[in-house]
């Protein structure tokens, strides 16, 4: 199962972190820092796999990929295929996000934080890969945003009015 998905920039700032097993915030921060420490110590043109047992405990591997200013990191155990995870990053990072934002950059992730999470929820659920068709993912995400927009439009006025009244 997949243990965590992280996106961080080349300065080590986390841009997205999702842990599929609960970890306290401090622990998450520490892990992100240590992962970054390992990542930046790796030279160019080496494999994308890291044995992460010293960071995440026994039976854990780490696959990362580097797009523009971002590191995409997936942590998982031995029940997943490493090459497949690399492709999952490709799927998430290049295909889906490219489709979403056209020429994706770091700021897109920062400003569309909830959308990224929606996409991630479509791909991975409970630590398992759920959906790998990027068209399907996009369709689901678009459907959600459409519906959200619709409900938002309907509820916008009464909602703000009520909250305004309650103040």
């Amino acid at each position, binding site marked *: 199962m997949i243990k965590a998905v992280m996106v961080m920039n080349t300065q080590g700032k986390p841009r997205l*972190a999702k842990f599929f097993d609960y970890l306290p*915030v*401090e622990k998450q921060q520490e892990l992100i820092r240590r992962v970054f420490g390992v990542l930046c110590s790796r030279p160019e043109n080496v*494999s994308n796999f890291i044995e992460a047992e*010293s960071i995440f405990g026994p039976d854990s591997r780490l696959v990362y990929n580097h797009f523009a200013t971002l590191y995409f990191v997936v942590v998982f155990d031995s029940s997943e295929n490493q*090459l497949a995870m690399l492709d999952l990053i490709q799927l998430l990072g290049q295909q889906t996000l490219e489709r979403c934002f056209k020429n994706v950059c770091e700021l897109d992730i920062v400003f569309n934080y909830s959308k990224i999470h929606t996409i991630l929820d479509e791909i991975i659920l409970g630590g398992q890969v759920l959906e790998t068709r990027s068209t399907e993912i996009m369709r689901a995400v678009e459907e959600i945003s459409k519906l959200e927009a619709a409900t938002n439009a309907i509820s916008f006025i009464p909602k703000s009015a009520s909250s305004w009244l309650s103040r």
Partner: protein
Amino acid sequence: MKEYIIRLVYVEMLGHDASFGYIHAVKMIHDDSLLVKRTGYLAVTLFLNEDHDLIILIVNTIQKDLKSDNYLVVCAALNAVCKLINEETIPAVLPQIVELLAHPKEAVRKKAIMALHRFYQKSSSSVSHLVSNFRKRLCDNDPGVMGATLCPLFDLITNDVNSYKDLVISFVSILKQVAERRLPKAYDYHQMPAPFIQIKLLKILALLGSSDKQASENMYTVVGDIFRKCDSSSNIGNAVLYECICCVSSIYPNHKLLESAADAISRFLKSDSHNLKYMGIDALGRLIKISPEIAEQHQLAVIDCLEDPDDTLKRKTFELLYKMTKSTNVEVIVDRMIDYMNSINDNHYKTEIASRCVELAEQFAPSNQWFIQTMNKVFEHAGDLVNIKVAHNLMRLIAEGFGEDDDTADSQLRSSAVESYLHILGEPKLPSVFLQVICWVLGEYGTADGKYSASYITGKLCDVAEAYSNDETVKAYAVTALMKIYAFEIAAGRKVDMLPECHSLMEEFLASHSTDLQQRAYELQAVIGLDAHAVESILPSDASCEDIEVDKALSFLNDYIQESIEKGAQPYIPESERTGMLNISNFRNQDHHEASSHGLRFEAYELPKQTVQARIPPASLASTELVPVPEAMYPRESYQTTTVPSVSSDAASTELKLRLDGVQKRWGRQTHFPSTSTSNSTSLKTVNGITQVDGSNTANSRTRETYDSRKQVEISPEKQKLAASLFGGPSKTEKKSATGHKSSKPSSHMVKSHAPKSSMEVASEKTSVQQPPDLLDFGEPTVKSTAPSLDPFKDLEGLLEPTTQVSSAVNHSSTAAVTKSPDIMGLYTETTAGAHHKDSDILSGLSKPPMTNMVGGTTTMQVAQSSKGPNLKDSLEKDALVRQIGVTPSSQNPNLFKDILG
């Protein structure tokens, strides 16, 4: 609000505290607006964990949302279910989720399956009746749902292969359909048909087909097809290929498939991509178990990977090498490993590689010389990271030789070890563990071959002790090594002249803050003062492999008990015959649920019944401490126990509870031993373990030196087996049986030595000097005198004198430490002498040494307490009461043992 919450999530991800906003996220999921609700769900899944207090506010909303008409709401709720529902709340949402399995939308069905899978992971019992649902969903119309079902099935099959064998045919046919592109085009990914489903299916088939010929035969065709169809130019195609190789290596071997797997591996290894090389090495490691000859053709590729700058690849390659090590290539591989070990800083991985080196060296060592050199290297570079057991194993190996009957080879080995160690000592900054080994070996064998003079070795040892002056353990080892060398010198009839630096070192240690060091220094002083004969019996040369036998039955007490009974003392009532206590003890036994523990405890109590004993002298009580209890708290308690009987009776009654504490804990510990026969070694090992862990726990570490070699003998059965298989000699067992008769004398020693000790303890207790528990352990130095001797009586006479000397020295040291007034001191010596004589009487009847440690100890203590107390019945009742008031053996003991024994 929505924006705020998203900011909050972001802020928390950056590492700041956002807990003040959790409640707002919870409030948001109650909202009607889909947008707000989804944001709320997102936030709570990221903020909360399943045991958070706020979960209780969420469950109701989740229940409501799962019934919603809008499938997006349902999906959002299912997302939250996966993360936030804990074992207790599963029943609350389970019915709805099962209903959702038949939802018209496939996205919902998928997520419902995932939610069930999650429940299964969290508590398999809660959904065990729903497992059939997974099978049903496998036939879902939508391939996506089918693919999702594979995840829980993979888990289920991992746990229990046999009940899913019937699914092999279905899996194979699904895989076939996928491979033949029967799925909709949308599932293609980089021109591969549904690769993630293929990978999952191959993983499942690998599980189902492992060591099952019939099931495997069904798979051969489809796996062969996939091998052919896989497009090895894309990443995902290689992923499927790799999975095929894993599958082939796991199922019942098929020649043709193995060939295509080997082909695929060579393609991987030849590729330029590091990722593929990595996968190739990994796959090779898997395949090598089945057909070792494959490695041959890839040798060069493997060597290339070893030189690669990529760390991950290098490590994987070392893993592969580790798997393919044979006695022919062990030297090269271990050398490589050590080189690599020196080049990295990662402690975690360094430890792993060091332990692998040790393992390989132990397993395949071509020669003893090489083995010792390798171990030296490992210790030198990663000494502090290596398990201390390894060090003890090495000492044992050197001490025992290699099991062959060839004594010259052994002594050659030893002298080469000594030589290499003397050489290594010149280097600065050695790890502590390694220094311990060096000191021990130098002490034991430094002068054995006569090549080096005693003064040269002692000089070196003094250098060590001075150079590493802040490492107490090393200093302790050094002092004991010094003592051994002097003892051997004296025994050989040579005149001993201490080096001046050695003198000054001793001076320093005599005033050391560490009681352990102080004790050792006093021992050294005492030993040097003795004559050759006594020294020979105290520290016989090359006796480190001798076994010390333990008299579990305390039979040496029989005479004394008989005597006391004749004097009209109350006989001992076994615990099982005491009413009220029986239930409790049974209850405790259930706690430990170890059948053998019953046998052990009963043995301890039944024995006194035969002889009907009563009062126990303090001396024999003290003997129970031969093996110190490793837990820090225990020594204190046990010492008090031994002390009390000879103090006034009211003291005994006030101390009652504490004493029982100690007693019970000892019992508790004892019950964990699998059987009586092993209990000795185990307890000794415990001592060993604790000394390794905590050098400053002086009470225990004292015995280390004494039993060091013996402990080596008893390190661990696997290691023994290993060594035996390595060197092919049953030397151990032989030695054990051979030394059985020799150990009659040490026992007398021990008891005698304890006489002064216990009286001393009494004294210290009376004067109510706040002594650290460690100090009370002084009687034990004489235990070292575990000398082989054929006639115990003769030796007894000979030893009587030295023992008194030692004991007086001991007393002296205690006075020095506690600064007691001299007249009290005189009192003690008197008591000591008195007890002494008595003991020697008893001891003449001894046949076996009294190392019954805990079992015996408890018995005697009980008796002593009951007879000494103001009223026998009273104290018995109190005893029972105290037991009822939760003085149960601490339940963490088993863990503790596990920790210590590995």
